[in-house]
């Protein structure tokens, strides 16, 4: 009994490797398009008072042009760290990165400071969790939007002003001429977040990274902001990397989704698949713990244990201590393997789980 699953697993392992290496491009995109952003084996170490934190341990992520890609995981799993790495916003003295971040096929980790400046806000832009503190309190909204535009498209002040009003209208702030002269503290949280989005889309970027854009807002405003993001993505053909810990948001607007755990992406698939057949035990446990209407249980299922500390080296699968499938193979961290069309997961036990489901 004990040996049986091991055998099938090994077979499965070899069987899996073939299609991945042979038909690699099928994996990267069903529509055959090139990836807009491809993160390969990204590692990030951060210096802290208590020692070196291995915040990211080999993140692999692909984002296609025009898609809204959800990045899900619990706090501390490295979602925000991944997005900050793409923008290279980490303090250079206190962080160390390795791996590749390919944007339009160019490695951002090798880009010069000048090139990064042109990319930030121009090609890739970012909105943050807390709009209140993310806007400069001493500059008017219009100045902050116009500044971005003028930084990337050399133009006159009057032109920037005109453009600013256009952008404000685009994100649904009326009347734009009046609002442009207001300071951030005069606006509500929802409007502040719209301003952040306006700053982000000012130069028509290819990729918008939204780091928990709705966490600080109340629920009705949340829906409006998500709607706006979706509309902008469709209108401008812009990809969005949406970082969240809320599966409701994922279900609402994401095309595909990646699940992160302890500094690694453990599963990537399209939104429907994650809710129906999540492959990784962690993703399945996460989905199982979402409260659903008509659920008739005494307790909501939870995941026992807590995420691992990221100090020190760990070769084993990070989920091992909390996993019900664990065995000796899990002492070696699993690679991402294909388990369906456009569906990747990092687990040794994919087959066993499939069998269990059937």
């Amino acid at each position, binding site marked *: 009994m004990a040996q049986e699953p091991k055998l099938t697993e090994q077979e499965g392992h070899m069987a899996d490797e073939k299609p991945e290496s042979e038909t690699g491009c099928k994996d990267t995109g069903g529509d055959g398009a090139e990836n807009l952003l491809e993160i390969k084996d990204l590692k990030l170490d951060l210096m802290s008072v208590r020692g070196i934190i291995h915040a990211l341990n080999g993140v692999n992520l692909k984002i296609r042009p025009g898609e809204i890609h959800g990045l899900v995981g619990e706090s501390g799993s490295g979602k925000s760290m991944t997005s900050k790495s793409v*923008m290279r*916003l980490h303090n250079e*003295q206190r962080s160390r990165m390795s791996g590749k971040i390919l944007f339009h096929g160019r490695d951002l980790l090798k880009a010069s400071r000048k090139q990064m*400046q*042109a*990319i*930030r*806000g*121009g090609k890739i*832009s*970012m909105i*943050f969790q*807390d709009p209140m*503190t*993310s*806007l*400069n*309190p*001493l*500059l008017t909204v219009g100045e902050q939007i116009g*500044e*971005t535009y003028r*930084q*990337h498209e050399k133009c006159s002040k009057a032109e920037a002003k005109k453009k600013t009003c256009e952008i404000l209208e685009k994100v649904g702030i009326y009347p734009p001429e009046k609002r442009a002269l207001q*300071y951030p*503290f*005069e606006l509500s949280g929802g409007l502040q977040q719209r301003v*952040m989005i306006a*700053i982000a889309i000012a130069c028509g970027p290819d990729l918008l990274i939204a780091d928990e854009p709705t966490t600080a807002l109340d629920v009705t405003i949340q829906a409006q902001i998500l709607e706006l993001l979706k509309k902008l993505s469709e209108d401008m053909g812009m990809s969005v990397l949406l970082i969240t810990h809320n599966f409701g948001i994922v279900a609402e607007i994401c095309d595909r989704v990646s699940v992160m755990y302890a500094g690694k992406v453990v599963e990537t698939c399209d939104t429907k698949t994650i809710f129906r057949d999540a492959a990784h035990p962690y993703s399945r446990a996460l989905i199982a713990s979402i409260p659903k209407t008509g659920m008739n249980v005494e307790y909501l299922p939870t995941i026992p244990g807590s995420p691992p500390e990221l100090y020190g080296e760990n070769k084993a699968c990070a989920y091992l201590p909390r996993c019900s499938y664990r065995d000796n193979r899990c002492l070696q961290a699993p690679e991402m393997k294909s388990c369906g069309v456009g569906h990747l997961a990092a687990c040794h036990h994919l087959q066993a789980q499939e069998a269990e489901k059937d």
Partner: protein
Amino acid sequence: MIKFICKRVLQMIPILFAVSVLIFCMVRITPSDPIASMTKGRKTSAETRQSLEEKYHLDKSLPEQYLIWITNAMRGDLGDSFEYKQSVNSLIAGRLPTTAQLVLMSAVLALVIAIPTGVISAVRMNRLTDRILSVLTLIFVASPVFLTAIALMLVFALRLKMFPSFGSGKTFAENLRYLFLPSVALSLNMVALISRITRSNMIEQLNSNYAATALAKGIPYYKVVMKHCFKNAVIPVITVASIQIGTMLVGAVLVENVFALGGLGDILIGGVKSSDYPVVQGITLMLVTVFLLINLLVDIVYALIDPRIRLK
């Protein structure tokens, strides 16, 4: 905005009143005989004594004396000095220009040096430049004003003979040369303090979320520092600087003493030593008023710069 200013001015009045009472009482806390110090201990007839007491209202009760002093002070008359046989007003008028120029020069000098140093220190945090500057500021914070003054005088006036070692000039321009060393001495303390505060404010602003937003917009680092963080970091520094002006007013007394500038400090200290009540009361009241007015002015400037206060 106008409401804000009115409120601040109205708040000042009770404080000034309390300050005047405090000054009046403190000076008289131990019974001493001002007539004796006036007459330098010479024996005086009961008649002269009485006429002197009458002249300076010393024969009246303390509350009466206070009322006479404060009503005259509000009219702008600070009374007559026991020691100098002239009005405190004319004493102040003769010496105020030197002191005012000294304080003004050092305040400007301090801000011009301290703020850039603080910003550089913050941007180069923990690098060599920052460490050197930090050690220097630590030493200057710990160095008493008169010691700095003496050291500067020893090196630049007595040894190198680049500047006059004491006295003050007659015109404003001439004074610039006489007051250069004193104002450097007076400002170094403030330079150290303000550059430390600027540094820590600046570091806080550089780590703020909006700085990250600005960087994520593609704004170059130097522009983020100068355009976004600088203003946010320096506004609170202004408040600290205005309180430091108070320390400077007192520091000026010490520096004037070292360089024998003949400013307000001399007569104030002389007055303290010889129980010259009107002089001590008058100069102290004036300095406190000036100090409070500067604070008020800074608060208004602060409100004008910061939209969060201006628009509320």
